[in-house]
């Protein structure tokens, strides 16, 4: 059992932690303390040093100087089991669960002596039931983890830490993968934990979440501690400025008169494909000079719609009109030739090839065309020049165009993808979760680029799970639910609550009734 926290004194104290990687100072004399029953937020952009700091706490790295104290006792450095044993649990952003094992198996892993004669599953089951009860984290102990939803998997990951009697819980970007509803459920569980005396470090760069859950905020920038404030003494805007070191202004949206429809879907349906839900008689019109936002809980047909517009899926009914002409045999090649620019949802899996260089990735969609290919031969000089221009104009931070893209941060990867499609001056842009997982600087940049494209007359389809983002950027909003699309709503005509009702499918009942009357 971990020692109980004393009535006074912090449960965790980091004192003057410094860590250098070559010339880069990842952590520069960082000190912070955490008390029992307290939630502190660790706020900072990608690369600010949050992960390094946590890795030092967990013994994956050894600090160059400084010390860690847990429950009043010095923590030996460089020993991965020490922090775990002392009662610190980490919920990683990328879950460390084995999909083919049951929930219970995942929980028990590593908690019983490796050379023990027999697993005590009955005891584990009882303990899990108690934890689930205490914290409102219900989950089926015998379910295979692979069959669970993302929200449930995160619950398992949290239970795993609690199962090990963690008294301090560290959550790394816990809401990055959650829908707003799941995030609310998570916060409710976290509050229960705090009420029972647990302490939480909440790593995030989402400001409103930080404001909602934490009592104190610790801001890191470029490896330095920028400050520590109580949430009652600050507001999101001030935090953002501390984090970025610059004043942040929300994107400015100029009024535009919508142009003609560039891409139209009329009663288009697509088949269900495994986890990808198909579309059901979707009507959609993407007009020039307009950002069309697609709101909805993930898994409701967003992927199907994105696949359709990108050309990787064909309609099973209905018609697609491009610039007014119907396209019967829809394909990826047609979509590319028609100048549909795609910012894919998963930049690692479908957006880039990890072990290709920036140059190669920059021309992935156009490698067969001039100037990159001439009479069947690649012109690498032209490709490299193109990559260099993208790197320059879109501020892609990298050692050079010959770097493998794997080594770039998500934000810089996304900037390259953005540059790759924007440089062609596309008329139709499919932006699927374009800012997911990016830091504020990168988000501002990407959103600014989408707005600039709209202002020069492009039609943008913005798919996002972030309602704030949809409502800020979109001229027209559709809600997608179970493969069906709501009618278009003009900017400002719907509140978040109104949209939420359409997300859970409540709007359609009335629609159908009206439709039925029309038919009669």
């Amino acid at each position, binding site marked *: 059992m971990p020692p109980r926290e004393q009535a006074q004194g912090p449960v965790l104290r980091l004192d003057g932690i410094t860590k250098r990687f070559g010339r880069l100072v990842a952590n520069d004399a960082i000190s912070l303390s955490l008390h029992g029953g307290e939630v502190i937020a660790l706020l900072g952009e990608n690369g600010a040093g949050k992960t390094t700091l946590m890795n030092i706490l967990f013994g994956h790295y050894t600090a160059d100087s400084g010390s860690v104290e847990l429950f009043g006792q010095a923590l030996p450095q460089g020993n991965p089991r020490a922090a775990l044993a002392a009662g610190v649990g980490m919920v990683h952003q990328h879950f460390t669960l084995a999909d083919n094992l049951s929930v219970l198996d*995942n929980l028990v892993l590593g908690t019983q002596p490796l050379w023990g004669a027999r697993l005590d599953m009955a005891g584990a089951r009882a303990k899990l039931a108690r934890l689930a009860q205490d914290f409102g984290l219900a989950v089926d102990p015998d379910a295979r983890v692979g069959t669970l939803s993302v929200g449930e998997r995160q619950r398992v990951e949290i239970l795993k830490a609690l199962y090990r009697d963690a008294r301090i819980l560290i959550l790394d970007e816990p809401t990055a993968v959650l829908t707003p509803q799941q995030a609310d459920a998570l916060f409710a569980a976290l509050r229960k934990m705090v009420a029972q005396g647990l302490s939480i470090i909440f790593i995030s760069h989402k400001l409103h979440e930080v404001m909602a859950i934490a009592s104190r905020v610790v801001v890191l920038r470029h490896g330095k501690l920028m400050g520590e404030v109580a949430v009652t003494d600050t507001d999101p805007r001030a935090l953002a400025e501390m984090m970025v070191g610059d004043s942040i202004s929300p994107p400015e949206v100029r009024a535009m008169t919508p142009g003609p429809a560039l891409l139209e879907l009329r009663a288009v349906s697509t088949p269900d494909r495994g986890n990808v839900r198909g579309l059901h008689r979707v009507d959609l019109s993407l007009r020039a000079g307009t950002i069309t936002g697609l709101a909805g809980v993930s898994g409701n047909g967003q992927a199907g719609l994105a696949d359709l517009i990108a050309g990787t899926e064909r309609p099973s009914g209905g018609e697609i009109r491009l610039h007014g002409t119907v396209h019967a045999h829809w394909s990826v090649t047609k979509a590319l030739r028609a100048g549909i620019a795609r910012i894919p949802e998963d930049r690692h899996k479908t957006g880039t090839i990890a072990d290709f260089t920036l140059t190669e990735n920059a021309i992935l969609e156009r490698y067969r065309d001039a100037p990159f290919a001439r009479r069947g031969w690649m012109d690498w000089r032209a490709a490299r020049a193109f990559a260099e221009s993208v790197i320059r104009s879109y501020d892609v931070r990298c050692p050079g165009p010959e770097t493998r893209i794997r080594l770039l941060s998500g934000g810089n990867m996304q900037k390259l993808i953005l540059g790759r499609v924007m440089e062609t001056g596309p008329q139709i842009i499919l932006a699927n979760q374009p800012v997911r997982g990016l830091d504020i600087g990168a988000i501002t940049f990407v959103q600014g680029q989408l707005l600039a494209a709209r202002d020069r007359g492009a039609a943008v389809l913005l798919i996002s799970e972030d309602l704030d983002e949809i409502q800020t950027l979109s001229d027209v909003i559709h809600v997608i639910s179970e493969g069906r699309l709501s009618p278009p709503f003009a900017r400002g005509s719907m509140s978040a609550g109104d949209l939420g009702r359409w997300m859970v499918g409540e709007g359609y009942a009335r629609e159908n009734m009206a439709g039925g009357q029309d038919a009669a």
Partner: protein
Amino acid sequence: MGEVLEIFLSASFWAAVIRIASPLIFATMGELICERAGVLNLGIEGIMVVGAFAGWMTVYSGGGLWTGVVVAMLAGMLFGLLHGTLTVPFGLSQHVVGLGITLLATASAYFAYRLALPRVTAPPRIEPFQPLPIPILSDIPLIGPALFSQTPLTYLAFGLVGVVSFVLFRTPLGLALRAAGENPAAVAAQGLSVTGLRMGAVIVGSGLMAVGGAFLTMSAFNSFFFEMVNGRGWICIALVVFGAWMPGKALLGAVLFAMFDALQIRLQQTAIGADIPYQIFLMMPFVLSILALVIMSRRASVPAALMVPFNKGER
């Protein structure tokens, strides 16, 4: 048809089935352990040759039979150590290393055989394990002679399936092993050593493969000759898939394959055998195994991290 029925009703047929299955069971369990931990061990064919030679050579030079089994196992573990070192901490291609180990191990065994016995043409024989009838049980008609009048190594093979099954699914070590084959990051996050688990699995698994090989020289053919393993290792790789990485099902697969094999030998001697080229019969167990594999492994779930090297710190 009557002849075929007669085959199935003879105790000697079933005794042969169990005998043929035994080495496959050892090696299949060895491969299964490796794969459950996330390492495909294609060294199996060569490690079986090494086991066959090491066990036989020990007995031929005057060692006891059980000493031979232990020496075979140690020899197998040595090649397992080499395989594990190259594939786990170094993270090299498991295909290439495995095939390399097979070539190296096979050649080493043949070379050692030639060095030890330079002037021998007819393979010398050893006194093998003798059948050990189990009292009372071996008196049961049909089942008795088939199941309970086998050599001790066969009993060991069948017992091993239970042990492997228990360890994998009922002990903390087994859970950690399976997790290393499913998501090594999950294992590392609990402060356990993925490298240690995988190395251990490959070494122990290779030891079992070598015992499978030793069975051939010490409990079946009584001598060592070239090409004697004859693709049994590759069959075991298929049996692991056939068994969907479950020890019990893999045992079933081994017995099924052995049945086809025993059947084809006997069919060659019947009236049907007179009209059909014997190669067709030789082919039969393999063809039937492929068919069974296609049918059985449709829903099998491969360990998710099989053949995925684990490097700490890489996402």
